[in-house]
């Protein structure tokens, strides 16, 4: 598997398997030839996966702390955004109720990740955010940005999941990842876009890709 360089979307292992007929045929031929388990292990080790696993066992705690704080940074960003949304008076009725609920969810995520980060060795400070341009654009701009942030958050958790070494940290991350997916799906739907923009398989994003998008809202 090609390493994730973060300079553009890299097909996931599954996508390479499922969507590129040539690589799928080649892979299945290899499986048929050498015996299923042996081939899969060979494929993994040839991609350096086993090496990565060995390394991460050695510094698993550090990796997990980094992932937790990465998630926490994004949650801080989202919480700031929704705090401003709820104070803006831009929404009423159903949309207001939706945003109030999303805000409460993000606050809970911040709390949980902050506690976990502290236990893991230390929590990052909240970043300074600026959404002035977004709010200057009014309700439509805010709705679109909300959808953008949620899709970004979901893709971020998805991209980070495979790095996590501790099972409990992974379970925690998964319990939030799917919530961000829920938010993203509904917000897309509300603005008239597909609730599944990537189709059957959501696309993960690398940390570099995510942070370069998030930076637009950071001071």
């Amino acid at each position: 598997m090609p390493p994730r360089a973060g300079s553009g979307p890299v097909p996931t292992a599954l996508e390479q398997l499922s969507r590129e007929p040539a690589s799928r045929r080649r892979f299945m031929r290899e499986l048929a030839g050498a015996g299923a388990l042996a081939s899969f292990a060979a494929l993994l080790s040839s991609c350096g996966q086993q090496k990565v696993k060995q390394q991460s066992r050695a510094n698993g705690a550090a990796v997990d702390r980094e992932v937790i704080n990465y998630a926490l940074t994004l949650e801080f960003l989202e919480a700031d955004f929704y705090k401003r949304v709820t104070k803006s008076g831009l929404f009423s009725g159903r949309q207001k109720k939706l945003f109030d609920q999303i805000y409460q969810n993000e606050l809970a995520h911040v709390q949980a990740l902050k506690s976990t980060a502290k236990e893991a060795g230390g929590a990052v400070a909240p970043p300074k955010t600026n959404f002035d341009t977004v709010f200057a654009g009014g309700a439509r701009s805010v709705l679109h940005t909300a959808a953008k942030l949620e899709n970004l958050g979901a893709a971020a958790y998805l991209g980070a999941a495979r790095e996590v070494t501790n099972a409990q940290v992974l379970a925690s991350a998964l319990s939030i990842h799917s919530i961000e997916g829920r938010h993203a799906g509904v917000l897309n739907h509300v603005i008239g876009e597909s609730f599944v923009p990537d189709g059957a398989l959501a696309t993960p994003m690398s940390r570099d890709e995510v942070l370069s998008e998030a930076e637009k809202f950071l001071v």
Partner: protein
Amino acid sequence: MSVEGTTRQAFLARGFLAAVAAYGAGAAGPFAAQALSQGAGTNDSGIVQFALTLEVLEATYYREAVKQVKLAGEARSVAKDIRDNEIEHVSILTDLVRSLGGTPKTRQNASFGNAYKSEASFLALAQTFEDTGVSAYNGAGPLLQSPDVLEAAGQIVQTEARHAAVIRYLRGEDITPAPFDTALSMKEVLGMVKPYLKG
């Protein structure tokens, strides 16, 4: 996924669980605790087959619903989109079970009671299936050995979560049952879907 030892595991869970409890997430939490501590004893191929069983059930549910249920505009369009995703999930997971050395089982005799009698009843059961799917994948995730298979499961669970939320939205329900999605063990999930599987 290596479980590194009870002390550190419990240590890292404490703060998270406290937050989950404070926000009233309910009886089931983000950790399929039983499954994690017992190690479940199933390899990746078995776990993916379990997911495939759920996807076959869902694909059948939506495929037949689009044909049989009187669905209006938005509900019809959403049902079709979900149907298409679930059919693709079946195809993807069938290939994945094979590539992991298993023999995919896709034969099912499913029946859904009175779910098709109205749009309302269809959407209600759809919500149950989607929410259950999310919890199933979240429970299974930490049990997987391969990071590639984990990523695949993550790609699918996010889609299921999007389905779940839009169905809830169409029904006027809260789009998230709690700030954290719950995790269920394979045993719990199979218990929940058993009434719909006849063979």
